């Protein structure tokens, strides 16, 4: 067993994360969630803290390319991993196609859940393209492809992202549109 890299005083752990393509070194307490590290240590406040219990999806980011809830994992457990937040989705000032689709389809009102919705939505399209079924899939024993990503599939796959303004129909439209353009 190796201790967290020491030398930082009692209980503080040195963590290196590759955040949005940049190597970031920070010192955190063991109890610091990835969400708090991103917001409080790295000032990446695009990722939101809603429930802090894994129920609302507002804190969705990618670790190692997969969508996860940053409130339900410890920063120190992600040492050495690649993390992508909403700030890392655009490329050289050009919005990701789902970001653009959210603007086009009016997929938000207050905006608090929006970064989580978009992070999740981009991942939903990639998961469907990778052939992952969902609870809305009639027969999981059959292969799944992106063309099977119906509105019902999108609603099921996005159920971990709550929107208190209830923009759901427009969010589904935006994701369906971005999936078609992929």
């Amino acid at each position, binding site marked *: *067993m190796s201790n967290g890299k020491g030398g930082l005083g009692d209980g503080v752990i040195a963590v290196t994360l590759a955040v949005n393509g940049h190597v970031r070194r920070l010192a955190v307490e063991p109890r610091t969630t990835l969400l708090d590290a991103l917001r409080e240590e790295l000032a990446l406040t695009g990722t939101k803290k809603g429930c802090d219990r894994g129920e609302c999806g507002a804190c*969705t980011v990618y670790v190692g390319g997969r969508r996860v809830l940053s409130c339900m994992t410890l920063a120190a457990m992600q040492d050495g991993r690649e993390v992508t937040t909403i700030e890392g989705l655009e490329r050289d000032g050009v919005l990701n196609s789902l970001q653009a689709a959210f603007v086009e389809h009016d997929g938000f009102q207050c905006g608090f859940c929006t970064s989580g919705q978009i992070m999740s939505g981009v991942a939903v399209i990639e998961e469907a393209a990778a052939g992952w079924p969902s609870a809305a899939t009639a027969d999981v024993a059959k292969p799944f492809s992106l063309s099977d990503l119906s509105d019902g599939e999108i609603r099921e796959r996005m159920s971990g992202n709550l929107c208190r303004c209830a923009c759901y129909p427009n969010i589904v439209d935006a994701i369906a549109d971005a999936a078609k353009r992929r």
Partner: protein
Amino acid sequence: MHTFALTKADDPEKAIAAHASDEKLAFIAGGTDLLGLMKDRAALPTRLLDINGLPDMARIEPLEDGGLHIGALARMSDIAAHMEVRRRFPVIAESLLFAASGQLRNMASIGGNLLQRTRCAYFRDDDAPPCNKRSPGSGCSALHGLNRNHAIFGWSNDCVATHPSDVAVAFAALDATVVVRGVGGVRPIPFADFYRLPGSTPERDNVLSRGDLIVAVEVPARVEGRASHYLKVRDRQSYEFALVSVAVAVAVAGRHIRSARLAMGGVAPKPWRLADAEIALRGVSLDEVDALRSAIARSFVAARPLEHNAFKVELAERAVLRALQVAGGRQ
């Protein structure tokens, strides 16, 4: 959250020894239940041991004999997406996909899934009302409180909570094995023996002891595997725990049931096998709905609903019938 120490395990033997010698140490893998419990002060470990780096524990391997080996660190989403899992045991893939959300399924390990604690609101409440599971001897707030979501089988006066896992219900129906490594070596625990009924010690959910680490779940080849289905009934259509759920796997000759495996979630402190119904269903045609109904009803004679959950009996019986018809259609 309270303060605690965090270290990473790289050797299973040392990890097991550390767990055996420190009752305030908890293993952490996905963390999706443990961190929630810690935030609600329902678990207060002083030391977390991150087991994600332990070797060869995330493998999902279809076995040559038709069975399945699932390493304890395999993530729910990877198991559910695995084509051979989906072909051999649709009930496993479906039970995983009907649980949690896409984000949580990417995080949660299968070992941790089996060990998640009840969603009883009294247990989770950080104001800590009486709860024998959380604080042994303090009483059960749900017994005469709000118990709409609670058990109709297997409960005691000390605890009426249900077990929340979906995939555990599928594993129970298939008589899977939990492979546990402890201080004395590796031992297989049949699923039927893994969870405990509450009795007078509801603080213990299962038969694991200090120093026990789940290393894998093994699913044996089952003739009923392909014709299987998981049906989950909830207050919301998605992202919710079960009111009742059922895992069904059947083998039929023509339209007649040769063998049926049935287990339920949301009705008991552990995945609940419907043994009497399984026997009564043998030889019954999938087209004889009345005969199916009366065979299923055999397992509900012993149901003991609480003040607010009598509806679960009929809901469960109907869910079993529908799941049986869907599974039967998958021959």
